[in-house]
């Protein structure tokens, strides 16, 4: 039988027909709906999605611990070294010329050692924690409250340093980039209002001992928040509240002044309120800059050396000396070792400061008797100075005693000297005498990093750095 086929064109033969059909079928196969599924990533195995962090007690705990870790890693040098250099505590003899801009108060806005970005990184972590914990998914209620308190304490601590180093700073309270990327500077008073609110929240949320950390004084509790709140009120010149909060810490019964200066950085010492802890084999890298090994590093300025009364044990214990090239160099020795597995931890808050806060609050309210009593207590306990100072006749004398006591007890710790000079208005006088060649009044505030000035059009530079 012959079949008739009506083909439309003579050039398409049987082969072509079949080929075209196969081609079409193949093309259809290609446009398979499974494509979409293929390009989805099953899981990310080397990182944790942010949305999964605050969904269990264990991961929440790790993330909160991460905030302290960020402080410990990134803020120990700025707090303990850079600001001690900026004040009249110490001077740089080390090979690291990068310390010099702090030492001579000639920071430029592109200095890589400004702690701005590190602090805002912590602010982000705390905001992320507060957002994640507030959503309240998967965490137990008691843990959630506690971690929320710790996050708020740490946010307050970060803003405390920001506002004191840089002045008015953007108050970022969200992880939302579209808000934070164009933030402008918030007046310092408003930042302080937030700090106080956060610390009060923390006080309410946190427990009143260290049972949460198994006795380690390495994370916040109620007294930690209270101690920082006392300091914040003092800086705000709210003498009544400063005294109230300092009293609460002193009377908590958890802390006592050390007998003698030895062991002030020892882990979990009786005086410590908050310390940044080390993991097992960690060493304190800031300590390496203080301790004079073979060549002088960070050397005490005469202002500090001359501030001690004769016979003060703190001068002989917390300051060591070594001869080099025929001269004797004195260097801070609160850290006594650079080796790993050290039992020395960074001190963030300790009891002596609370006594000094109370003393200052009393002095400013003209209660010189109570003020000098606290001073004498510290002189006796830390310095071994048995001769009590008489009650001062006036506020200025009393304040001078307090400032002197702050200088000799708190040197190279917590930026105290730098902030004290600033908040009491003494900075120009002291620094002009100490660093006449380079000091300018505008140096009291650090520059906002140039990068951020360029990226955020609403951010304006501090005077003297434009």
């Amino acid at each position: 039988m012959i079949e008739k086929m009506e083909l439309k064109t003579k050039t398409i033969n049987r082969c072509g027909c079949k080929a075209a059909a196969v081609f079409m079928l193949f093309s259809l196969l290609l446009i398979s709906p499974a494509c979409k599924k293929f390009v989805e990533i099953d899981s990310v195995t080397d990182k944790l999605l942010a949305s999964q962090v605050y969904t269990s007690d264990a991961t929440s705990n790790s993330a909160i611990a991460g905030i302290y870790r960020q402080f410990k890693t990134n803020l120990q040098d700025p707090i303990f070294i850079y600001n001690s250099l900026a004040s009249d505590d110490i001077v740089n003899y080390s090979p690291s010329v990068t310390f010099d801009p702090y030492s001579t108060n000639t920071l430029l806005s592109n200095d890589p050692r400004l702690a701005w970005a590190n602090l805002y990184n912590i602010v982000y972590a705390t905001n992320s924690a507060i957002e994640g914990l507030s959503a309240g998914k998967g965490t137990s209620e008691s843990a959630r409250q506690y971690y929320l308190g710790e996050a708020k304490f740490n946010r307050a601590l970060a803003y405390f340093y920001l506002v004191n180093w840089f002045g008015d700073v953007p108050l970022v309270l969200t992880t939302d980039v579209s808000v934070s990327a164009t933030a402008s500077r918030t007046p310092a008073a408003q930042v302080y209002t937030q700090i106080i609110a956060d610390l009060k929240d923390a006080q309410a949320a946190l427990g009143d001992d260290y049972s949460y950390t198994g006795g380690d004084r390495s994370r916040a509790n109620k007294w930690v928040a209270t101690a920082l709140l006392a300091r914040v009120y003092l800086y705000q010149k709210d003498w009544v509240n400063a005294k109230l909060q300092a009293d609460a810490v002193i009377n908590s019964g958890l802390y006592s002044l050390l007998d003698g200066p030895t062991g002030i950085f020892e882990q979990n010492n009786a005086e410590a309120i908050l310390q940044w802890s080390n993991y097992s084999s960690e060493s304190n890298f800031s300590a390496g800059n203080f301790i004079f090994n073979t060549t002088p590093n960070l050397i005490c300025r005469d202002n500090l050396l001359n501030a001690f009364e004769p016979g003060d044990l703190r001068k002989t214990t917390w300051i060591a000396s070594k001869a080099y090239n025929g001269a004797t160099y004195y260097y801070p020795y609160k850290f006594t070792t650079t080796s790993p597995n050290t039992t020395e931890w960074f001190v963030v808050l300790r009891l002596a400061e609370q006594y000094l806060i109370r003393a200052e609050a009393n002095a400013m309210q003209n209660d010189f008797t109570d003020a000098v009593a606290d001073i004498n207590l510290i002189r006796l306990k830390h310095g071994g100075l048995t001769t009590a100072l008489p009650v001062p006749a006036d506020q200025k004398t009393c304040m001078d005693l307090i400032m002197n006591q702050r200088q000799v007890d708190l040197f190279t710790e917590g930026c105290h000297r730098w902030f004290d000079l600033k908040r009491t208005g003494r900075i120009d006088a002291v620094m002009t005498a100490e660093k006449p060649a380079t000091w300018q009044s505008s140096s009291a505030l650090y520059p906002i990093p140039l990068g951020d000035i360029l990226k955020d059009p609403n951010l304006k530079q501090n005077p003297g750095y434009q």
Partner: protein
Amino acid sequence: MDKALYFMKWTTILFAFIVTTAFGVWAEPVKGQNVLLRKVTVNIKAQLLPKALEEISVASGVKFTYGGTVANSKLTINADVKGKELKAVLDNILKNSPYTYEAFNDEIIIRYDSEKEKSEKKSSVSPASPAVDIHGKITDEKGLPLPGVTITVKGTQMAFSSDANGFFSVQTLRDNVTLVFSYIGYKTQEIPVSGHQELTVKMVLDYGKLDQVQVIGYGATTRKLNTGDVSTVKANVIESQPVTNPLQALEGRVAGLQIIQGTGLPGSGMQVEIRGRSSLLSNNYPLYIIDGVPFPSANLERIGTPSSLSGQSGSPMNSINPDDIESIDVLKDADATAIYGSRGSNGVILITTKKGSTGKTVFDVNVNNGFGTVTRTAQPLNTAQYLQVRNDAFKNSGQTPGADNAPDLVSWSPNADFDWQKWYIGNTAHQTNATATLSGGDKQTTFLMSGTFHNESSVLPQISGEGYERGNFHLNVGHTSLNKKLHVDATVFFSADKNKLPMPTALMYLVEMNPNYPVYDANGNLNWVNNKTNYIAANQQYDKVENNNLNASLSLKYNLFKGLDFKSNVGYNRIENNQIDASPSTSYDPSYGILGNSEFGKQLVQTFLFEPQLTYTTVIGNGKLDLLAGSTIEQQLSDGYLFLVDSYSSDAYIESLNFGSMDYRTASRIDYKYISVFGRATYNWDDKYILNGSFRRDGSSRFGPGKQFGNFGSIGAAWLFSNEAFLKDCRVLSFGKLHGSYGTTGNDGIGDYGYLSFYDTSTNYGNTSTLIPTQIANKNYQWEVNKKLELGISLGFLKNRILLNAAWYRNRSGNELVSYALPSITGFTGYIANLPAVVQNRGLEFEVNTTNVQSNQFTWTTSINLTIPKNTLLSFPGLQSSGYANSYVVGQPLNIVQKYHFLGVNPADGTTMIQDINNDGKYTQLSSYNGQGGDYVIAGTTDPKWYGGMNNSFRYKGFQLDIFLQYTRQDGYNLYSQIPAATFGNDLYSGWTAYLNYWKNPGDKVTVPKPEISNNMSQTEFQNSDAGFGDASFLRVKNVSLSYMFPSGIVQKWGMKNLRLYLQGQNVLTLTKYKGYDPEQAGSTYLLVPPLKMFTAGLQITF
């Protein structure tokens, strides 16, 4: 699990598909032949054709198939046969008709053939032509047999090819046909034949290489017929250059391709850009494809190296042996690149490795040896000059040198004079390269295997085990089935290299060491002076990198039906990178008591690829239609580890993880998946009008949900006007083609997982493990899209002795995908985002190839290329308030450099005078554009104004001489601004003699401001001014290659086939006025080790 199933599903479907269709097809030819051999007995008297066929069908049991023309045929048939073969019957009855037949499966197709009708009409006058059989031999221009020449019968799709001995045989039904002989690299010849004939065809070399094969995405074409813009560099050009990295061999050779070598150190990274920078911050690397398998293009970052020194990171292409490469095709316009869709944005570089060829087994050995030094340096100060500068600096600062602030003036010897630059980069590098290749094959199977060993030392001071070593193995096997339906090609190459160098970060600091620094103390021990690094000791720190690279690909092609081919590429690539950065304790000042420490890095990148494709070719009307449909499924897995180990008790164990204490470790694993479908249609009408369209739909895991897929496509057209009748006989113009294309490509060259926000583990806090935020998310970013437009013309004159290509292109990249810099108040310094900016790259490219002299004895050819690019930021809404306000200016190139405008040195006090743009009485390091209120003006751009190359190739008897010149007209950073120049006179740093013309006394009219010892504002401002940026143009004799091929008569007596001696020189001579090291690196703000001036001598023997 899902993914595995998914793969299996695909594979199974495709496999089943191949098997079922293949079996049917294999059987065909036999059946078809059998049908024609059937015996028939019929008696047909004056029947019309359809009726006659019906009777034959009944009688033979064979089915006939035909169309309307046959059915309506008025042809009358008479036949009376008994037991005759069907073939003979059909031959007889259709002899004088316009009909042909063809056996297919169990049936016979009767077709109307207009050509046959014409000849039949003629034959109504003359006797009918019988089917003819044409035999012959094809030779090359020297008379040697040429195998593999394609012979087609014009007007039909019949094709034949010559065998290993050049013989061919063509059977055709018709007489008076025209045979077309074509072969790559030779001119296509058309020879009319009539009757049985014995032919000898001598193929003639094509001057203009118009029929040179160009590899394009998923296929190949020729320069003549290409609608897109592709430049090809062949093996002979690559082989003539003593380079380690194949990319180095492309420098200056291709219009539109700019390549800058990172440093002159072995294994250096390469900056590669095709047609300029289109992305603001993200990836501008082209896509590399080696034998069909994508190859990582980003430089392998070295651990511990600041990213600003990216020139010192390693190029992954370094593991590719230049000797293994057959050709490199650079795809530039939309027509060529759109088939690669989302990854074709920055152009595509296709690398094809060598394959075996039919013929006698050949053994080839090629050995060379050479040495090199850095091309160009600057003159550092000697001690006398240096001390003068320092004394002047103290004088200018009004201070007195003392032991504490000026040991160089007070304590150190004024007679010591050490040239640090010479010590560090003034050494001679040595290089040895040996390759052995065995290749051959028969009609069906070809193979090639080669092994290469490469050894290279650096110009840095030698340390133990220093240098670069590489071994390569390359294997290719090709097989074609007897019936030529199946073709399989498998390629494997493996390379292992080791690179050990002193830690390369030191250069920029080291070269400004003061020349009288007391390196050794009185006892001959290394001396450590406070505040200074002892670089002799520091040089013991080294960086050791080992790479293993395995690339395997299998391409399979099966002819399903006439014109329809199934193809499949399966590929696997594995790059393993191991790195140790070791710092022995002896490299540190012993007073610090620092123990040895090492960083260990490991990276493993694996790429899996599966690309099934179908191609279909058919003739429609007077033209040929090529169709392609395919799919890509790709997965890339990257694993990385980094360990930091310190406190080694002994430096002897510093390369072991075991003997120190673990300080830090991190790991990463990245999964990248990619899927797409693509198609292309090309219609070529009579080699005159060619239209090409392609489409691709891509999905990439680098984008967030809902943003993963994108569509890309292009359309290209070419008009070969020289094939038009009115130009066909033109004597001057031998070739002319206009082509144009427009299309879109994309760019997903960003990091993975950018649409997610992450926490990562960090160091413990106390005993608690920690999690810290590491990435802030942006869920909204999408593809960056590049719209490419191109118009080009190709002209050939005087039988293509002069070939000219000119192209104009305009690429506009929008929806810019960048690592957007965020102010750190957000908590992070950046995230991935699209920017509503448009970047345009526009330019002209020219390529001219001429054959100046061609005779038996002497040949002289020239090729010239020139590129005139222009990069412009066309628009950037919101630039003023963005993080880029100080970097970019609308209407200007992306690579602009902004600096103070230098007004000279104040003759009165030697200070730098700067133009105060905003008249506020002070100088601000911000842009004066975009309302930034600064004093920076545009000093220029690091983009070249134009660049290109010229090659002259001479051949006289056995001698061949190639001279390649590279030229670039550009501006760049010079010594006055390259870091750390601002320390001149300050802080114990030395400088360059270029600084010596500095201000000394009031009234001096000089170009360099006074040095001071501290607060060196004049020098800082000088460095930040446009005095530090200027002409960096250069003309370079990039390559000279001379070779001598011994006469074949002589070498045959020695038992060889070929013997070739050669001398090669790279970067031989550089002419420039540039104030600095090598002008090629003038785009860097850092001093880098310059490229090498390399000379090698070699010997190649073929057996």
